[in-house]
């Protein structure tokens, strides 16, 4: 009833306004702006007619209202295209249609690119910078912003953990650190998120999930250090600048909605019930009595076809001197393993206001989100692999209703039997809620007294509050086994970062000498405060309340930790430009960080770069094939301080009640001084880059080629310290260095250009190669003796599979070379010498080098032990290739992204841990990985190179088909996307992109997701 009244009211208002408009004697011009390349719609084109101007929407549509009648020139301008004009006559009270086609110029070199504390024309940039705009983003079910640019930027490895919205890692030109972070700095709308980008809070999945990808206009990656160096101490791993969408002229509503369905692609290959029974009969005959007659596929019990939906609504508009955009989004996505869900509600508001006769631009950005994450309880995947397929899921006689191995003595407490993963899934809970809000106000004032002088102030906050809780009832097998007696955990963590920045910018042509300069100088202050309280209870007296309350518990731990840090910086940059031909840039940042002691607090991070646009030289003017050609070279020093606070303080750790010392009949609590290096300081990376940007054949082919080298020194490392000189065997200190070297190529080609009604095709290609080498971890020791074991795996306790050894890539696998039999299978023998290659490790001054097996002065020592393990491949891809195609045909468009890695290796930990018959001899037998049928291993061979598998692959990450039509003159786009359409790989495990460290230990399986949806604008 009420609704109807509003409707009638609105209708009356509309009727009343209509004649008013006519009386104003103005007209309307509207139309669509497209590119001459494939006829693709161009957004962000400024269209002016007389005093009125508007910008085109993503579909290329624009509307100019309130146009004074008369004939005038309609102008359309967009960076990277030649301006176009068209004479149009506007008539009072009428709407005129005027479409415009823009001709592309040197696209990549004329665009405006956002850089740190400013923006520049791409053609004048002297560093390696890649901007990806929303039109080129990956599509489909995208939950985290990082995924938008996967395979779009050369040299950037985007790694996720396969969970929906799960944690992402970005590696720009390889890792530069081992113990500090190797993640880039994220800057959102000019606000640096600071170290960890909101990470460290354990409630949610990816800390960047608060940012709705639908709100992002473009993402710029500062790949080389000269571009990033203006961010100094946080820039060693590169910088990612994210710009959110802002309002455009003409009130517009935009809705995008989609539904998705995901299914499992690959799972670990375990024995089936018959194979398992046979293995138990042969290798653990005493356990056969424990077997039952079920035929359970445990992975089938815990995976599912997962559904998801997403709805985004945005309203944007402009009035007079202000632009605004308001957006809201809802996302709900299930994971392909039961129990995994992520749900997000996000709001965003952007406002730009021009004041003081356009001298002062004020902009505000405010975003907030709530993410609710449900996690599959820990152990579901590993137990699904381990649980015997002969056993049933349910057992009504147990208090939980689920079957569990009776174990030794029938008390269900056997330490050596797997937990029923279905019981774990259904009885335990693990969930997190994250509220995050980020807001900024930025003001830029153009001085009236000195043309080219601008002052900018930027104030921002970033607040996160989280709640993570997990509950494991006391009846669960795992709780019986560990003696925990049920556990309840809750953490309410919060973090706030505040940033204040101010900078002055002055751009002017020089008078005394030719050329022009652009000078920026500023100051930045960042403060971070975080609180990490948690409580955990073990030995719950009842399970009745679930995770909602604890009546009493055997042991309760309450913990509180407050951490604070400060970063203060002064920075400056000078760009010199001579006739757009010779370009020079230099910057310096002076950073102070509270993470270091008084002696080491301040660091200087300079950069210098030069560019030469050869195409502007007269001797190339005649070469029409070359549209643009630029050579660049740069050098920079950047820092990394992304590690824990208070490392320089010598701290004492108080022992808990269960670690006391008995003095007679009294128990005394303990304190322990921790190892410390009070002189800890920044990690520093010196980077060199030479590159060429080119555009050929009237821009039909453009691209860039870069060669780079990054030397990182003073690596913050937790290293073995000489025994007795400190308070533990490892100390976190600056020791060691590493190098990354590589080459990057990106190409963009307009292969087919649209002729009326024809086909258009644009293709992008990137290739990058990176070589990482640890050059030193201790300047005092010989390289041969220097190694640190790392990379923990499942199997044994504290077993590691990787090594940090100078001369090799970081985290190289550290294994024995397995001998192969005549059948090509790895030899199995109880005598290790028959099985593994005995490396020459024994110094032999007399027999060598005459002996046939000698290498240098070393010969095999006749024993297989730790000395025979050698570094063997590493997880990082040596080559990354990507290809994106954008095809258009009439109202259809098709795009896809292909990705390929070469030279990446994965350690198949599921196979190494469970691919051995000894696993059936446990208290209750574990199921076996099917590799045991090939290898016949009876005892585990964790360190065999057999498990280090080549994981090169070709993957269709993404393919989208869309159809656009008009409904009542409003564009409607319907689309369907398949993500992870196919993967071609020789890797036998679950996923060749098994995380950054290349250890496939019951990783979350990768989903194939099909998304269908529509986009409306009105």
């Amino acid at each position, binding site marked *: 009833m009420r609704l109807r009244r509003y409707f009638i009211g609105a209708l009356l208002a509309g009727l009343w306004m209509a004649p008013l408009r006519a009386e104003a004697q103005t007209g309307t011009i509207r139309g669509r702006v497209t590119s001459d390349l494939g006829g693709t719609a161009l957004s962000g084109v400024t269209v002016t007619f007389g005093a009125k101007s508007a910008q085109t929407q993503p579909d290329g549509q624009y509307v100019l209202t309130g146009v004074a009648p008369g004939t005038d020139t309609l102008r359309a301008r967009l960076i990277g295209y030649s301006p176009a004009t068209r004479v149009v006559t506007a008539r009072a009270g009428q709407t005129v249609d005027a479409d415009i086609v823009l001709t592309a110029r040197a696209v990549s070199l004329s665009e405006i690119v956002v850089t740190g504390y400013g923006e520049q024309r791409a053609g004048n940039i002297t560093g390696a910078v890649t901007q990806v705009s929303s039109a080129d983003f990956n599509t489909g079910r995208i939950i985290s912003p990082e995924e938008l640019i996967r395979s779009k930027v050369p040299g950037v490895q985007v790694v996720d953990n396969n969970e929906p919205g799960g944690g992402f890692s970005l590696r720009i030109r390889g890792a530069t650190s081992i113990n500090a972070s190797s993640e880039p700095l994220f800057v959102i709308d000019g606000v640096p998120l600071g170290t960890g980008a909101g990470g460290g809070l354990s409630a949610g999945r990816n800390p960047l999930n608060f940012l709705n990808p639908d709100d992002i206009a473009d993402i710029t990656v500062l790949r080389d250090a000269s571009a990033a160096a203006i961010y100094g101490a946080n820039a060693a791993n590169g910088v990612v600048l994210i710009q959110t969408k802002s309002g455009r002229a003409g009130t517009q509503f935009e809705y995008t909605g989609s539904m998705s369905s995901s299914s499992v692609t690959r799972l670990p290959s375990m024995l089936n019930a018959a194979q398992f029974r046979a293995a138990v009969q042969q290798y653990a005959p005493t356990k056969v009595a424990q077997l039952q007659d079920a035929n359970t596929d445990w992975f089938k019990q815990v995976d599912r076809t997962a559904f998801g939906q997403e709805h985004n609504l945005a309203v944007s508009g402009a009035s007079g001197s202000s632009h605004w955009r308001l957006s809201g989004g809802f996302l709900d996505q299930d994971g392909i393993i039961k129990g995994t869900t992520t749900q997000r509600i996000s709001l965003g508001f952007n406002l730009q206001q021009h004041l003081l006769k356009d001298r002062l631009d004020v902009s505000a950005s405010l975003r907030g989100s709530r993410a609710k994450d449900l996690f599959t309880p820990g152990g579901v995947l590993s137990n699904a692999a381990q649980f015997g397929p002969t056993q049933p899921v349910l057992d009504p006689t147990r208090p939980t209703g689920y079957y569990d191995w009776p174990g030794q003595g029938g008390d269900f407490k056997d330490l050596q039997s797997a937990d029923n993963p279905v019981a774990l899934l259904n009885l335990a809970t693990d969930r997190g809620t994250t509220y995050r809000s980020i807001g900024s106000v930025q003001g830029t004032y153009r001085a009236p007294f000195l043309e080219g002088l601008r002052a900018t102030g930027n104030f921002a906050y970033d607040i996160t509050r989280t709640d993570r809780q997990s509950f494991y009832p006391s009846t669960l097998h795992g709780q019986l086994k560990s003696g925990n007696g049920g556990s309840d955990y809750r953490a309410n963590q919060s973090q706030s970062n505040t940033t204040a920045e101010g900078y002055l910018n002055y751009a002017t042509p020089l008078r005394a000498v030719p050329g022009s300069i652009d000078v920026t100088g500023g100051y930045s202050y960042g403060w971070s405060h975080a609180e990490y309280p948690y409580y955990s209870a073990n030995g719950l007296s009842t399970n009745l309340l679930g995770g909602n309350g604890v009546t009493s518990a055997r042991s309760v731990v309450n913990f509180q930790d407050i951490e604070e840090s400060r970063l203060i910086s002064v920075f400056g940059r000078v760009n010199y430009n001579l006739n757009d031909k010779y370009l020079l840039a230099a910057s310096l940042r002076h950073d102070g960080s509270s993470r270091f002691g008084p002696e080491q*607090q301040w660091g200087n991070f300079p950069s210098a770069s030069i560019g030469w646009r050869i195409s502007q030289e007269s001797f190339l003017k005649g070469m029409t094939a070359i549209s643009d050609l630029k050579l660049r070279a740069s050098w920079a020093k950047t820092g990394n301080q992304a590690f824990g606070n208070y490392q320089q303080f010598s701290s004492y750790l108080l022992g808990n009640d269960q670690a006391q010392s008995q003095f*007679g009949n009294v128990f005394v609590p303990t304190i322990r*001084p921790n190892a410390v290096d009070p002189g800890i300081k920044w990690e520093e990376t010196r980077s060199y880059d030479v590159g060429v940007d080119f555009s050929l054949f009237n821009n039909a082919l453009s691209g860039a080629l870069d060669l780079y080298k990054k030397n990182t020194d003073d690596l913050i490392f937790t290293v073995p310290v*000489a025994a007795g*000189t400190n308070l533990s*065997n490892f100390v976190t200190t600056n020791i060691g260095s590493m190098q990354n070297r590589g080459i990057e190529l990106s190409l963009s080609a307009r292969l087919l250009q649209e002729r009326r009604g024809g086909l258009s095709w644009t293709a992008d290609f990137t290739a990058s190669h990176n070589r990482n080498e640890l050059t030193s971890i201790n300047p005092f020791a010989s390289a041969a*003796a220097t190694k640190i074991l790392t990379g923990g795996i499942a199997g044994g306790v504290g077993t590691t599979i990787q090594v940090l050894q100078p001369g090799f890539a970081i985290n190289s696998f550290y294994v024995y070379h397995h001998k192969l039999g005549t059948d090509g299978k790895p030899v199995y023998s109880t005598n290790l010498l028959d099985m593994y290659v005995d490396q020459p490790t024994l110094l032999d001054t007399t027999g060598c080098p005459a002996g046939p097996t000698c290498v240098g002065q070393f010969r095999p020592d006749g024993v297989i032990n730790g*000395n025979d393990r050698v570094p063997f491949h590493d997880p990082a891809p040596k080559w990354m290739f990507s290809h994106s195609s954008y095809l258009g045909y009439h109202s259809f468009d098709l795009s896809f992204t292909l990705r390929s890695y070469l030279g990446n290796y994965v350690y198949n930990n599921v196979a190494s841990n469970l691919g051995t018959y000894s696993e059936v001899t446990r208290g209750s037998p574990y199921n076996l990985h099917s590799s045991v049928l090939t290898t016949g291993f009876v005892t585990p061979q964790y360190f065999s190179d057999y498990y280090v598998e080549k994981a090169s692959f070709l993957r269709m990450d993404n393919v989208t088909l869309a159809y656009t039509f008009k409904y009542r003159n409003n564009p409607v786009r319907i689309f369907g996307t398949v993500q992870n359409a196919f993967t071609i790989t020789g890797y036998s495990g679950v996923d060749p992109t098994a995380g950054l460290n290349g250890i496939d230990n019951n990783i979350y399986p990768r989903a194939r997701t099909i998304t269908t949806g529509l986009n409306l604008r009105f």
Partner: protein
Amino acid sequence: MKAGICRSLAAAASLLSLGALACTELTVEPKSTVTEANIFSDANSYRSFIAKVYTGLAVGGQQGGDGQTDIQGIDGGFSQYVRLLWEHEELPTDEAIIAWGDPGLPDLNTMNWGATNNFVAAMYYRIYFQVGMANEFLRQSTDEKLASRGQTALKPTIATYRAEARFLRALSYWHGIDLFGDIPLVTDADQLGSTPPQQATRADIYNFIVSELTAIQGELPAPGASTYGRATGPAAAMLLAKLYLNAAVYTGTANYPAALTAAQSVIAGPYSLDASYRHNFQADNNTSPEIIFAVPEDGLKTQTYGSTNFLIHASCGTDMNSGDYGVDGCWYGLRLKPEAYNQYTAGDLRASFFVTTTGHGPAINSIGTFEDGVKAPKYTNKTSAGATGQNPGFVDTDYPMFRLADAYLIYAEAAVRTNTNLGQALTYVNALRQRAFGNTSHNITSGGLTVDFLLDERGRELLWEGHRRTDLIRYGKFTGASYLWAWKGNIKAGTATDAHLNLYPIPSNELVANPNLRQNPGY
């Protein structure tokens, strides 16, 4: 125009002044972290600190169950001091074998270790962790430090603590030279975070330990129920006796008379043999009158996955009910090597609790098969009255590092080797024999009191108490071909091993960190 300039200047100035204001202070003091600056304002901190030097032997870290581990690079339970010491002293010998395949551990069963063995490295670092804690305690408790903190009233108490810290440092240095030979000598005189130390000789450190123990013996607490778990004067004498007994190994010059004197001084103390041999290894063994120095464990207050908790859980498996040993489960690990089992004769109560799995004998056909070999659940979480300890997950049983029976056997061996006091020696040995068999039927005669008999008797009496490797080395039987046992040299029948295995290698990580060190020969 003019107004515009003013406005702009004001804006610029305000930006700059904001900068200047915030620029002044960069240091952020920790709020939730206890630092050296505030911890010692609490007088109790000294007691808590010396308590840590003790729990360094008992728990792997600052949390029960070995969380917040003291040393990095290995699981906290795996790296617990007593567990590592036990594994290094027992697994390579004729006494024990472990079924587990954790990388590095099987190498101990078969003398197959190299410089990268993570268990060997952990043992080395555990020793130096103890040394580091003791040194730092001594640095933080000097008279000057006490005076500067206004804690001079604590001086008498702290003097005792300082002697205890020096005892614990000497104990670990003894383990250090026994296992690794030439190692660096770092004391509280060295500054924290200093340059890598030089390698000292085994003899240098031997002399250092002797002088330290001699100096502090009178300052240590007196034995008694109120000082149980702490280092007492007799504990220092016992450590001296062990050192002197092995002086030939450590310095090249034997010193058996001194061993005899030191053992005599221990025996003169307030200790007596417990009527029950087994009581020394039960959950209430803190009431045994025989234990001179124990590493106490407690089901509620001192929890570890190492020490006796490891020994009890790992000795249990197939057919054995964990409840019978007062624990919550079996770990299927430790058994006897057949040679140790064969040392016992029928009626020896010290072997009365052994368990043999049906269908399996004393032979170890497969190291990884727990059922092979005789199980020796010597340690138990049941009290002498048969009650289960306080917590089946973490035992109450203390690890008896030194007990009177060992002092008797040291006395006897020193007596035989010096051919003095043989009558007294025979009395002591027969006291043990009599307890072992419940009567005098198995007493030996003076003719039977030989060094070889004593090695075997040490094997029987002190089985699985962490002395075996040292004993075999003293007798020249650990490596080489003179005595072979199952899986010695990684052959089931046993084979000769190279003499370099008498010392464990300096860990490869340590060679990286300290370029002054020279690897032991043969590695």
